[in-house]
Structures are given as C-alpha cells and as structure tokens.
C-alpha cells in the first residue's frame, strides 16, 4: 500500500519559509492569502498485513525519524 506522511512546523513555531512564500504571493497580487505553511510530503510504498499495522508502523517511523516532534507535527494518509 501507499502512504503519505505530511510534516509541518507546529502551530506557534514560526515558519520562515511559509512567511517568505506568503510575502511573495502578496507581491504577486494574491491579496486574499491569510497564511502559508510550507511542509514536507514523504510518500512511502510499504507492505503490511493490514491498514492498522501499517498505521502503527508509519507512526513509529514518523516519531523516530520523519518528523522532529520538538518543532514539527505530522499526519499520515494511507491510500488503498
């Protein structure tokens, strides 16, 4: 199965890249932009017995390596 792990800086942790992109969008005239967060997307193909065990494993991966939970949050999507 295929899983997508999305990683963003936590709310409350200033996102310098998001801020720069926001400025750039403003200067292009997209005046309605309220906020921008820049994150990472990691796409993983994996073999697992079922969705539940895949999710468990992906959470372990995220905690151990994919995200630095001091500054980042993550969410996991599994595609069938």
């Amino acid at each position: 199965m295929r899983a997508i792990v999305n990683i963003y800086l936590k709310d409350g942790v200033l996102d310098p890249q998001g801020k720069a992109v926001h400025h750039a969008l403003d200067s292009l005239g997209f005046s309605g932009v309220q906020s921008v967060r820049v994150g990472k997307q990691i796409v993983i193909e994996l073999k697992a017995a079922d969705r539940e065990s895949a999710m468990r494993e992906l959470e372990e991966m995220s905690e151990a390596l994919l995200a630095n939970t001091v500054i980042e949050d993550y969410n996991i999507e599994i595609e069938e």
Partner: protein
Amino acid sequence: MKKLNVSILQFPGTNCDYDTVYAFSRLGHNTSIVWHKEESLPENTELVVVPGGFSYGDYLRCGAIARFSPIMKVLREYAENGGMVLGICNGFQILTEAGLLPGALKRNDKLHFISRHQHLKVVSCKNAFLNRFKEGDIINIPIAHHDGNYYVDEETLSDMEQNAQILLRYCDEDGKEMNVNGSVRHIAGICNREKNVYGLMPHPERAMESILGSSDGERMLEGFRYE
C-alpha cells in the same frame, strides 16, 4: 599543561573535521578522527567533538540521518556516563536531533545562508567549556550556517535559563543582543542540564589565529583543559 585525548567524529559530509584536528593539535592535545561506522571510541577519550559540515547532505533535516549512525549509540552512552561532548554547527544540530541537547535548529528566519564574523556574549561560564571567560565577555567567532534558528519551548527555555544552560547569545560589538537568524532570545550556544554536553552554531575552530580575524576560538577550546 594537561593534554587531552580528543576524538573527532566524521560522518559522510562532515567538512570541519580537519579544521577541528588543527585547532586541538594547535592547543597541544592528541586528536583522532573517528569514522561514524565505528562501534567504539578510542580508549581514554576525554572529549568527543562532533564537528561541522553537512552530514548526509542535510537530507530530511540537518543531523536527522547522522543521528542513527553506529557511533551515535556509543556517543550517547559516553555522554550519559558524564563524558564531555562538544557539537559545533552541524554537530550541534546532530546533538539536538539525538536528544542529547534540548530544542531544535530551524531554517534561518531570513532564509539566507549566513557566513561572517559574529560577536557573541558569554552568558554562563561556570562550565568546562567557557571557564576561560567572564560573564558578559564579548567575543568574535565566525558563523556559517543555513539552519541555526534555535527553537525551544518556553517552559524548557526558562528551566535552561535557571540552570545556567544558555552559554552564548548573538550580539553587536558593544554587547547589545541582536537577531542574527531568528533564534529564541538570540541563543547561539547551550549545554545540557548536567553540563557535559555543549553545542554552538559558531565555529571556534575557525578563530584560532588573529591573522585570520580572531583568536577567541583558541581561548574557548582551551577551557576543556582546565576541567
């Protein structure tokens, strides 16, 4: 003068290893470079330095992959047994990723790679690293980093301040604190609660001779000898 056995770790992408060897040799210490695949440190190691560079190309996050090298398991045990560890720049990032130091280093707030001489204020000097300085001393050490924007949550930060774990802050030549890269409270260097693991973004090993702009790094690295 006391001679120390200094072990300097080397990861794929480390590039300040030989500068660090030069700096500690210049101070008269014995140095050895330890490849990251090693599963032990040289016997009688008295100080481990995790030098600067771009371990694993900074992939994923700076220091995130290096943290899982075999030598890091050894380093953790060494530090937990009270061994002295110093992380410089990428070495600092590796130590925070490994959880040996609190907080994390984010992309600089203006997104630029900053490479220049920088004034720093000594905040706490009652430790093995900065004992050659007085509180409030202003020193000049080069910085060269893209991800030096130190972050730690407020609660941990106030604990660290109470425990004299904040070592250095960025400042101007008059000692007025200044924002360099977005770091919380202008922090440039910290240590752990037990005061045996040190990390800083500036490069003392590049400030060893006044002809190169500053010899404040010499005084800084000299500290370990007096512990």
